[in-house]
């Protein structure tokens, strides 16, 4: 008995060390794989740059990025602006086109979800138009608006509206009958049903639509700006290609990826806030 109780503290200490080690291991397993992946990627890039002298390696790109980001908001005429301005211009276009798509698409999604008749009316049109590459809409935009700026916003609008309509409508269709029975038993007004039952029930689906839409919009803006020119990240990529400044193109790719990731993550966080 005595021996046992004497051994006990040592046991506890050993146990706690073992637990701490296990926790540390779990932590390492979380951090290690991404870190290794990035390292391997950089290594492959460096090797590739070694074979091709016209492709800048990670080091050279990093140096170029440092000079570029040292002065992100300079303005030397309309076709030579700092990276900050280009990013802001692209974001503004996405925000506008995407915002208008939300204003039109979300209420339309509610209507399509609520009314089988309207859903039936719109489904052949949506089925036909949804698979069309967003850039195919650019000439139509240019024709109608006669200007590059609204045309690129139009492209964002048309490409991000589909996921918002479809996901909102799917959400409305999946509101549990139980909740609607509650509304009927309590005899709630249409407005009350919309605000206290339909909207909260649909919100997670709606946010999924918004997340998909912003992903598409951000994909499309770079391509649209390459064609329309003027300002924006897409224009800048094309401009630097004409200048044969490959380091800047690589930087642009990272910036586009990073901002896309941030937009997506923000919406994922927002969506998590509304999970019940």
């Amino acid at each position, binding site marked *: 008995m005595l021996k046992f109780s004497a051994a006990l503290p040592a046991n506890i200490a050993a146990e706690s060390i073992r637990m701490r080690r296990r926790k540390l291991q779990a932590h390492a397993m979380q951090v290690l794989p991404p870190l290794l992946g990035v390292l391997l990627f950089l290594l492959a890039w460096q090797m590739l740059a070694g074979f091709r002298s016209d492709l800048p390696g990670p080091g050279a790109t990093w140096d170029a990025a440092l000079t570029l980001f040292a002065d992100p908001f300079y303005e030397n005429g309309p076709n030579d602006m700092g990276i900050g301005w280009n990013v802001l211009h692209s974001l503004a276009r996405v925000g506008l086109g995407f915002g208008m798509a939300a204003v039109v698409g979300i209420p339309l999604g509610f209507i399509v979800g609520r009314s089988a008749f309207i859903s039936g009316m719109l489904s052949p049109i949506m089925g036909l138009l949804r698979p069309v590459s967003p850039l195919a809409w650019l000439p139509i935009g240019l024709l109608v608006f006669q200007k590059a700026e609204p045309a690129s916003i139009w492209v964002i609008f048309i490409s991000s509206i589909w996921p918002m309509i479809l996901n909102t409508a799917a959400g409305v269709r999946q509101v549990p009958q139980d909740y609607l029975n509650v509304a009927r*038993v309590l*005899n709630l007004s249409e407005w009350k049903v919309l605000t206290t039952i339909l909207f909260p029930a649909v919100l997670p689906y709606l946010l999924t639509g918004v997340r998909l839409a912003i992903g598409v919009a951000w994909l499309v803006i770079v391509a649209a700006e390459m064609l329309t020119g003027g300002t924006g990240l897409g224009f800048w990529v094309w401009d630097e290609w004409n200048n044969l400044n490959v380091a800047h193109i690589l930087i642009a790719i990272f910036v586009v990826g990073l901002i896309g990731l941030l937009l997506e993550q923000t919406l994922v966080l927002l969506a998590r806030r509304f999970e*019940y």
Partner: protein
Amino acid sequence: MSLSKKFVEISDVGMTFETAKGSFTALKNINLTIEQGEFITLIGHSGCGKSTLLNLIAGLTLPSTGHLICAGREIAGPGPDRGVVFQNHSLLPWLTCYANVYLAVERVFSASESKAQLKARTDAALALVSLSHAAQKRPNEISGGMKQRVGIARALAMEPRVLLMDEPFGALDALTRAHLQDELLAIVAKTQSTVVMVTHDVDEAVLLSDRIVMLSNGPAAVIGDILTVDLPRPRERLALAENPAYHQLRSSVLEFLYQKEKRPAA
């Protein structure tokens, strides 16, 4: 039975559903009169149409034939005079328990009462089911039994003429169920509510009811028998266990369910 006491009248009610496979008759020739303050349970094998009958009284579905009258008026749709406690509680998950109950209170009383009065009603309803402490919790933060109590509070807060309960305790474990049955007995004794409850639990039916309405097996279920439970109130679960009358009633329900209306081999 005096005329004024007839509170819910179901006359010659039949219910036929049109399905993809043709029409399906769930209920036929249902006649039942419920008095004010009476506690009725509907019992029968699953699929016999007892929930359909409850939905008809609730007005969630309208009968194919016959009439239903509640407090002198034909039932043409759902309304706050008939509070419903759903089988799966049906609380809105994005609202707190308080807000779930308040939604009902606001709908019924906001035209005639002040905000403070509405709040007092909501608090009182939650206190009635002993859940004042959980008022600010969301449904997913409380247990199944507590959710069902909020559902009861929501229905009672509307001061309905009839409380309709669709297997309210079916999804709960036996201990919680017994606890809530006792609580319901106390609440009904206090509020003098008229209650119609669907159940498949024989003990629950005998413990709670004034009359047990036994439905035959569907399709086209009819009222097979009505058993009057004349056990004195207040009823005590433990005392009843010793009471021969209780056992007699219990075995007549069992007899109906397992001999007369033997469940067809599933």
